[in-house]
């Protein structure tokens, strides 16, 4: 302690101790922390149970369909369709030959696509594996046909792999995305909403497909005409993007629960949860994306993950529950139990704010604001913002901010942003002041955080449409900017030039278009000025 500060502290202590005010007030009653969770190898145990239950489906005995297979590549689409019908009529015995044709990269895309469609119509479990394997084919056209075929086949074990398309597809047309989203809808999953909305800005055929699917999911096309004038389309696409950013979370919360997953899908989901223990970030990110897009279907399995003895699984499962928000409310008991988890407590508090009901979350978040650990206090401040209850959250945050100057800067920033999120819009201005003045906060990240929170808050409290777009708009229900899809300029360029698919497209398949160049974002000063101008107005 420095000499000056120790002197001041001593004097203050002396004055306080000598007492000017009579008896001390009783301490406010404190909400006790819930008991810690009992952890165990629950994911591995469940995995073993399901693996014992789910047997691999062997391929049926092969039938001699070589003559039909040779016709798969015929140029005439009607002839191909006739071949497809004949192969379906041949029954499951055709599956081995069709699987081989689908995997044969020397065949034309049209031939392989026809093989995929025939596999989809054979209504046999053995068709799932070859189709799922071909979802990662180099040809986007094959991937599109396979995505459609999996929907026709109707085995829900393909759901996790279909969802993965929303991460992996860099193709600019959106053909595979539309096909995957359509098949997923058949399984009751709407995890590709954001990609469908994105396709409203794609070419006409993809726009048409996307709006049909969106109308089926949401019940309205919101006036979007895929053949309309470009300006009208842009305006309507922006409205859809706003809907996605601001209204989709409530829409998803109100949606009826999808059907119970089969054992085979349950096994796939538990395998996905188990991958959260992996080392490579890429693997974890893939798993996290699938779990998030599974939505409420994933929650019982995430609860298993939250009870697992492996901290990585608990940590990433907490992250996914936070992203799911109130849709993961069934996981509240596990989240409460993890507040005592020494390593993961900050993540648990954040999840509590995002997921739990007011009566469960608020007392503990308020208690956490006084925690000696800065990370916990940051998480609790953020959690109060996520809870979205101004009456309960603003006053405690105000009290916390009364110690302004003595708080760690990142805690002060979190409290300002949370206050803004709860309707105290000028707090965003204070957050910007702090970011500019404090060397302990990264100003670029702070501006992005403010933009994100301000977009939501201005929508709710500002009385009009905000000029800002939340960073998480790409993924419904995501409270803060996450980026699952990592567009790679090199890959995009390769995709746009057709480098991944040198073969000519099959008839009826759309020709690639060049990906539009994204303009560089405005610099920080411009963005800060825009925020200040908005707040000033």
């Amino acid at each position: 302690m420095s000499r000056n500060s120790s002197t001041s502290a001593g004097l203050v202590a002396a004055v306080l101790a000598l007492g000017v005010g009579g008896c001390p007030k009783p301490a406010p009653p404190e909400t006790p922390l819930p008991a810690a969770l009992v952890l165990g190898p629950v994911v591995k145990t469940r995995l073993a149970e399901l693996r014992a239950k789910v047997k691999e489906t062997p391929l049926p005995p092969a039938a001699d369909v070589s003559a039909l297979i040779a016709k798969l590549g015929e140029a005439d689409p009607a002839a191909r369709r006739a071949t497809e019908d004949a192969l379906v009529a041949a029954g499951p015995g055709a599956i081995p030959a069709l699987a081989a044709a689908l995997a044969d990269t020397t065949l034309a895309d049209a031939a392989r696509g026809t093989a995929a469609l025939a596999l989809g119509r054979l209504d046999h479990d053995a068709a799932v594996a070859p189709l799922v394997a071909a979802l990662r084919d180099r040809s986007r056209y094959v991937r599109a046909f396979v995505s459609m075929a999996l929907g026709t086949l109707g085995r829900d074990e393909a759901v996790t792999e279909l969802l993965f398309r929303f991460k992996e597809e860099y193709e600019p047309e959106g053909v595979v995305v539309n096909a995957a989203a359509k098949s997923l809808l058949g399984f009751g999953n709407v995890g590709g909403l954001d990609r469908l909305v994105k396709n409203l800005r794609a070419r006409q055929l993809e726009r048409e497909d996307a709006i049909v699917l969106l109308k089926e999911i949401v019940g309205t096309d919101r006036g979007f005409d895929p053949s309309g004038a470009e300006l009208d389309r842009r305006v309507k696409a922006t409205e859809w993007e706003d809907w996605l950013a601001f209204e989709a979370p409530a829409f998803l919360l109100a949606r009826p629960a999808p059907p119970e997953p089969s054992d085979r899908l349950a096994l796939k989901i538990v395998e996905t949860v188990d991958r959260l223990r992996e080392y490579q970030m890429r693997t974890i990110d893939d798993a996290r994306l699938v779990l998030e897009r599974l939505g409420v279907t994933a929650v019982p399995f995430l609860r298993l993950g939250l009870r697992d003895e492996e901290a990585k699984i608990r940590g990433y499962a907490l992250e996914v529950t936070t992203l799911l928000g109130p849709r993961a409310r069934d996981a509240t008991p596990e989240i409460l139990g993890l507040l005592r988890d020494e390593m993961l407590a900050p993540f648990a508090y954040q999840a509590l704010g995002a997921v739990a009901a007011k009566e469960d979350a608020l007392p503990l978040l308020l208690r956490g604001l006084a925690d000696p650990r800065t990370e916990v206090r940051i998480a609790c401040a953020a959690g109060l913002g996520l809870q979205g209850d101004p009456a309960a959250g603003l006053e405690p945050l105000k009290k916390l901010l009364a110690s302004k100057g003595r708080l760690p800067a990142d805690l002060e920033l979190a409290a300002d942003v949370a206050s803004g999120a709860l309707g105290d819009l000028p707090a965003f201005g204070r957050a910007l002041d702090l970011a500019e003045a404090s060397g302990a906060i990264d100003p670029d990240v702070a501006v992005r955080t403010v933009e994100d929170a301000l977009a939501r808050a201005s929508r709710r409290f500002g009385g009009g449409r905000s000029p800002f777009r939340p960073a998480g708009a790409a993924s419904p229900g995501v409270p803060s900017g996450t980026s699952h899809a990592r567009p790679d300029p090199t890959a995009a360029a390769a995709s746009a030039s057709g480098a991944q698919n040198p073969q000519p497209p099959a008839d009826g398949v759309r020709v690639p278009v060049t990906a539009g160049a994204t303009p560089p974002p405005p610099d920080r000063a411009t963005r800060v000025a825009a925020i200040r101008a908005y707040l000033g107005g």
Partner: protein
Amino acid sequence: MNKNIRLALLVALVLGVGALVYALVPPSGEEATLPSGLSAKGTALDVLRDSKSCQPCHPTIYAEWESSWHGKAFTEPEVRKLSEDFKNKDCIPCHAPRPMIETGLGERVLARLDRRPEGVDCLSCHKGKDGFLGAHGATGSRAKWPDACDPVRAPEFVSSVQMCFPCHNQHKTHDEWKASPAFAQGKDCNACHMPTVPGEATIGSTTRLEHRSHVYFGGHHKDYILDAIKFDATVEKDATGAARATVTVRNEGAGHNFPTDSRNRAVDVTWQALNPGGIEIGSGQGFRFRNPYITEIDKTNTQLAAGETKTVAIDLPQGPGTAVLRLMYRHNPFEEDKDSVVLYEKRIEY
């Protein structure tokens, strides 16, 4: 006056006077150099909560770390650009990690929620469950400052490659090292990247006058790369007068592929041909050393493995002229020449 109230006032008076006396007694010179609060009650884990609090006793190491890419892991413009200001949250765990000992040596790290601009901070590697981990223990300072942070002697932790690979093997560097001659020779990460340098690790230390550098020499230090990577170029003409340059690049000293790291780093062999008037008559890229990102399925890994040599042939425009052959280090594959580092340049008249 109630007896209890009188008793309470007496206790308050004693405490108050005590606090006043404590505040007015001048601290000793030695205590004044300790991190704030360390001489008060509480363990080092309670008090040393950021990197700055390590600085008073370890100023040299702090300065090295602060200048290093570990110290700038969250703020450095290149990573900001590639991660879109960390909008890609997957980058945060390694660029602002929680203490490795908490998350487990050799395990994936988790992101910190606070102090992110400190990047890979002191606590990331040195904070243990029961105290601070050091390679040597505080034998010199413990006698002088009984309340010092008292690091636990744990060289097996702080020198372990398992401290490095949770992050660096995300881009496969650890796997490359295990396949290299350096691994066979028992050379670990610290052998090259944290050499022993002169200077006391702790102020006032009389026993340790050298320390492991916390600059973390690597791809941002040109001289360091030049020690490991060798380059040569020749130009020959055939009977028809056609000129061909032959460039050789050898990974002589790196204990992993060159350039290590997937996606981001790239090293190009470039050429430029000038006519006798100095006007450019041709230019191009002869070869790119790079491990492509996982999504770039149409590209192959062209890194230069440890101990290997790559020879590149380049057909030059008709002479006479001067060939300018360069080895360019790019911090990302899209980096322009003006921002890249010229590792080597050789001019040959032909």
